[in-house]
């Protein structure tokens, strides 16, 4: 019936070439005691790269090692970093939040405005409540109404930004009173205040992820939502609270950023949402969820700022800087992709 039967002679040793189904992975070998190299890399890889970059820059880039410059790098990394801690929670569940840029604008504007009216107590609390409220709205729509996170948070990005323009009347709020701005520009024991807060947020965030039922539920829901549900994990509620965390973290970053800049308005930090997501992903958190850690996010946020600081010190054109940043992200993630596929193949033995 068919005269062009393609002939391929049987390889006598086909068994070694046979692809295995994904379920057939064998135990990983090597590593520190019981933990495999894979996990070690996943947790500490970016932190290692960050330290290497610091060492190289310290010896090769003038002024990089200066204490003032270094403090500035840490301060600058805190704003994206604090929001990225919250973003890690939702990305671990395979979702993300694009509305953070507008939440940042609204909350920072609110904080600066209230501070300028000498309502310091309100300036520090109301933006947080607003951020948490926005998180609840996002969480309700994504988790309970099952609208895709992309659509919900993109729409919320427009909505909140537009709302901020309307209430702000198009003007940026301004305030330079020391009792508020010291939060953004000050030091505690020689360390920039925002960075201290970043460390606290990251540590609390990591402890919650690793040592509470909520944290376990996040990893479970992100790894296999259906299995998690069957195991009794409140998947929807967990996703809802994840959005609340990212909303709250972003608002905290906004209060600090307003204090750092003395000014804030609806157009604050364009592209902030993508910088935040980039930090989480560069930090090793898988976009589809289930894997990742806050150590990675923490290091990646600082890595991005370090990189742009080094390029600035080398007087490199800001447009070229963008090309470099994009390339770093692309290279890091493709190396990661190749590496994990290699590891998989090696593990198949």
């Amino acid at each position, binding site marked *: *019936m068919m005269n062009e039967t393609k002939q*391929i002679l049987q390889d006598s040793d086909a068994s070694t070439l046979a692809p295995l189904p994904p379920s057939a992975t064998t135990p990983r070998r090597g590593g520190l005691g019981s933990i495999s190299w894979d996990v070690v890399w996943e947790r500490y890889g970016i932190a290692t790269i960050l330290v290497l970059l610091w060492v190289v820059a310290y010896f090769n880039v003038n002024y990089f090692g200066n204490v003032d410059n270094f403090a500035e790098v840490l301060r600058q990394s805190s704003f994206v970093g604090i929001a990225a801690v919250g973003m890690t929670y939702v990305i671990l569940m395979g979702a993300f939040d694009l509305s953070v840029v507008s939440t940042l604008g609204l909350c920072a504007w609110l904080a600066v405005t209230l501070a300028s009216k000498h309502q310091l107590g309100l300036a520090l609390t109301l933006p947080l409540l607003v951020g948490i409220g926005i998180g609840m709205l996002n969480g309700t729509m994504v988790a309970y109404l099952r609208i895709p996170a992309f659509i919900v948070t993109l729409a919320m990005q427009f909505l909140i930004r537009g709302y901020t323009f309307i209430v702000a009347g198009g003007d940026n709020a301004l305030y330079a009173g020391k009792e508020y701005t010291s939060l953004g520009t000050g030091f505690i024991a020689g360390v920039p205040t925002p960075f201290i807060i970043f460390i606290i947020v990251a540590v609390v965030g990591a402890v919650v992820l690793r040592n509470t039922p909520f944290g376990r539920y996040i990893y479970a829901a992100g790894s296999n939502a259906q299995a998690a549900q069957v195991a*009794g994990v409140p998947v929807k509620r967990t996703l809802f609270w994840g959005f609340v965390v990212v909303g709250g973290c972003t608002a905290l970053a906004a209060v600090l950023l307003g204090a750092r800049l003395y000014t804030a308005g609806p157009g604050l930090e364009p592209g902030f949402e993508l910088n935040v997501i980039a930090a989480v992903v560069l930090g090793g958190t898988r976009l589809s969820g289930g894997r990742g850690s806050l150590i990675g996010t923490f290091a990646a946020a600082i890595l991005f700022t370090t990189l742009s600081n080094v390029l600035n010190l080398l007087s490199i054109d800001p447009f070229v800087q963008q090309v470099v940043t994009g390339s770093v992200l692309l290279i890091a993630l493709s190396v990661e992709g190749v590496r994990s596929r290699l590891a998989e193949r090696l593990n198949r033995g």
Partner: protein
Amino acid sequence: MTNPSPLPALAVQNLSRRFSGVQALDNVSFDVMPGEVHALVGENGAGKSTLINMLAGVLAPSSGTLEVNGKRVTFPTPASAQRAGVGVIFQEFNLLPQLSVAENIFLNREPRRGFVIDWPELYRRASAVIQMLEIDINPRTPVQELPVAQQQLVEIARALSMDPQVIIMDEPTAALSEREVERLLYLVKTLAARGVGVIYVSHRLNEVFTVANRITVLRDGRHILTAPASELTEDSVVAAMVGRELLHTERPPRHPGNVVLSVHDLAVEDSVKGVSFDLHAGEVIGLAGLMGSGCTQVLEALFGLRAITAGTVMMEGKNLNLGAPRQAQHARIGFVPEDRKRAGIMPDLSVLNNFSIAVLDRITQLLFLNRRREGALMNTYRDKLHMRYSNAGQLISSLSGGNQQKVILARSLAQDCRVLLLSEPTRGVDVGAKAEIYALIDDLVAEGMAVLLQSSELPEVLRLSDRCIVFAGGKPQGELDGAAMDQPTIMHLATGLAAESGPPAPEIIT
């Protein structure tokens, strides 16, 4: 109708396939002659799907050879299998619903004029293939507008358009009505009459005997027999399919206690109706039925995963409201899902975290997890269930199927459940782990656990259950126990044969 050609259209020789520790197919040989309908039967897990996937170029064999028309072939990709003349019609359709019938039939093989598709030629060829099947479908109709049975015909037309030596049909009648089945069986005979070798995979024995010239039985990945259908009876095929091995370990005597779970006139969504039973402590009730008969739905509903649309469920005299797994867990009902990969494990989590995820409230102190208590709890069950892993921190996906299943079981047991719902408790598990799981279930039941079991493997149902409710078409067909609970009776009830006057005399094609 059998072509007297000496060369088989397809010959399978000593084909084997291992999946990390599980011998899915073990040294299987059989052949299909041109013009022959060769039925391949076996229970779920007998190795049929593995075999088909290898013939389709989806899986590579661990060892063994294939020959098409006497020539050795290998199928590294599905395309190479198609080129060699092996067409496979899978149980799940692979059609693109928005595209027309003709586009689907010639997908990726569209006739072209230069760079553009030659549409008149496409429709002409599609019509020709459709005519060959003696069916009435407009080649321009989008596939999504066709009923399921006609979509299947499109699948067949696609396979046929590749001018195959062999067509493999995997459970082709699973989704068809009785009349559509008749039509399909007629079509199968027509195909064979054209000289195509047909491998017909099914566990509906009446269809097999209607259509097949020869029958091959697989069990536990091994070839059991190949014989002309005329020399076999339904009973002899059933006996070959189920074997005797697992009956070696006998069910220990059981001592049922009080009623624990009482289900009255339960209906689940649109699929199941009229289910009633009383499950006692220290008792196993088995639910048996073919795929789609509704057993799985009953278990899922009792765990809050499907909506209960009518009836009552009582736990020790108290009415249960089962809206979500949490509520079922709260009522001390545990569940082991049938599809471990889809609904059981969280692959990125460690063995420990997979185990403890359902009992975190018990190991939490002042908001934080007490890891020592978590580890101790895990170790208790590790010993009790003979779990084998080097380290509780290793990923669960690195364990064998049997050990994964034990982790899932342990997760339910750690919740102190009174009722255990087991769906396919030993699917994809090697023989050793299977025996261990059976022994574990026996122990649990001896300690007073009430178990509701659903399995597509009849020997498993018989081995474990004290009583058995047989389902067909979403309705219980009868309850069996004691000596009345045997394979032929269950099979007859499950295939709906009992409704007719006894098993029909096999109709054999000559």
